[in-house]
């Protein structure tokens, strides 16, 4: 087995036994550690709350001498992540511009990305306009980021309903409302629902 595979397998074993909160990691192809899929759940209290963000993790044969290549597959509104999902994070780059070291693990990198979602770094932006907005009008930034999350990163309609309405929704109302949202093919009624349909489609498109 290649040197890289031994290490990645060990990292995965540890990850399966003690996964960090809100992060998952799995291989796409069982006998190949080159391509992996990670998901990060947006931390409560941030505009990314209740979003599930998918990331592509590519491990080159040079790993761990080279950092893993990680990209967001789910669109996200963030000063340090661009439209193509590229992430601006020092840990993902080799010295001298970055601070990758072979003792850092894939889990460590994913944790760093989760932290980046909680605390954007507008001083080293990839998206200038978002960084400016983050600095000058944080409320507007958070509003946009939240909308973006609802649109692209929420898995079911339940999330969007729950987040947009602040107060208690009685169980019976909730069930009735949701009975319309059964499958992707079914026709939906309210505009609220349409957003999810679109986002579901987007998900599908991304996957295919």
């Amino acid at each position, binding site marked *: 087995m290649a*040197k890289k595979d*031994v*290490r990645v397998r*060990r*990292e995965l*074993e*540890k990850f*399966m*036994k*003690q*996964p*960090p*909160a*809100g992060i*998952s990691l*799995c*291989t*796409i192809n069982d006998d190949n550690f080159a391509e992996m*899929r990670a*998901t990060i*759940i947006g931390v409560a209290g941030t505009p990314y709350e*209740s979003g*599930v963000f*998918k990331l592509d993790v590519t491990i080159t044969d040079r790993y*761990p*001498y080279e950092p893993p290549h990680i990209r967001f597959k789910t669109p996200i509104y963030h000063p340090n992540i661009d439209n193509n999902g590229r992430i601006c994070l020092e840990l993902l780059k*080799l*010295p*001298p511009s970055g601070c990758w*070291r*072979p*003792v850092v*693990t894939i*889990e460590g990198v994913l944790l760093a990305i989760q932290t980046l979602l909680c605390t954007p770094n507008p001083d080293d932006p990839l998206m200038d306009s978002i960084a400016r907005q983050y600095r000058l009008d944080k409320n507007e930034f958070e509003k946009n980021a939240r909308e973006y999350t609802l649109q692209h990163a929420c*898995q*079911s*309609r*339940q*999330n969007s309903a*729950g987040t947009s309405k602040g107060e*208690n*929704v*009685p*169980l019976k109302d*909730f*069930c009735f409302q*949701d*009975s319309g*949202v*059964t*499958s*992707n093919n079914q026709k939906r009624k309210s505009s609220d629902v349409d957003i999810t349909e679109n986002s579901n489609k987007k*998900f*599908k498109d991304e*996957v295919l």
Partner: protein
Amino acid sequence: MRLAKMTSSHADMQCDILKKFPLLVPTSSDFRQYEGFLEAKNILFRVSFVVPNYPSCENVALDCEWKLSELLNYHRATVSAWTTSEKPFNIFLDELLALIIRSLEDGGMSRLSLEDDSIVFEEQLDNLQSYSIILSELKELGTENLVSINNDFTSISLSFHDSNDHSHLLNLKLFNERGNNRKHFGVVDTDLPEAVVKIIQKDGKITKAFRTFCEQIEVLQNIWTSLFTIDQQCWVIDPVHPRKADMYRRIYISPPSVMAQISWNPLKPNQPPEIKFQGADAEIDVLRCTYEEHLEDWGPECSIIENLCSVLQLSSLPQPPPPTTSVVSQTVETGECIICYQIQLEGKLPEESCGKCLSSFHTACLYEWLGMMPGSRQVHGHISGPCPNCETVMKCPCPHNVA
């Protein structure tokens, strides 16, 4: 002769002290304890001294009123330096008095001026009023719920027995706001989720907060029952040590690639939990479709496991593996190369180690990394550069030379 001399020097010292400090009297026959006042600039400071090594002032302990301790606060280092010397006690007193006078002249006087007394008095009055408010609120609550309260009424612990016979603690911290005779309080510790704590904190009165606390606990009972069932019957991977405040569980749906995070909103306890899937795309998409299709089957009267099985169209949920004795807490085990995670690599053991952090490396692994580092230098078959773990500069021989 020597004894006589000692005694006479003792007598001299006592005379000296008595003359200069008439208000300070020894309270023990061996002159090791003194009580009384020090007078400086017509202000009397209540003091008591313990002089364990009389006649030397070594390890003197000074107990004094707050005004004097406030004054001496700025000279704490000086005074404690004296108490480690072997200065005679009377000289110590002289110097202490001089120090007090000096700091009074330096403006310490104004800090201690009489206006402070009135503020102190008002503060005490405020405190008294707030104490009586707290007491009346506690009386209203009934003592059976009170677990503990500290002397100055700054922390209160209340408990509640719920309908399932579990007891829950509510620890409150009270703090004063000047000019307002009400104490504010914050919840320090409780087993409720944060969102609920915010609701409790909103109420200004302790009685009302406690009532909200009890109500919320009863409201959360159903969620806790479901969480407990999941803990018992599913393969939970996160949180590792669930607390009552944790309103979510991440479980395996089909290990190791598909998991679901089930989370309840404590503010909407009657809603079905939100389920998020994580793992490989293809499997997740199928699951999510199934879930959305069968969401209406969620029955509030069914158990959480029945509900999960029915919305996910599964006959059962995976069980946790039997607990293993070997717990992998670290990715790398001691002795392994922290780059390749192996002990043996092409027949070689990790031979290099960092002098500072003691990490081990195979010569080949370390050499390869150091060779990539900007600024690393190769001299006489050795390469030097930063340790991959702690960045201390370390040396590594060229593996080809070693072979």
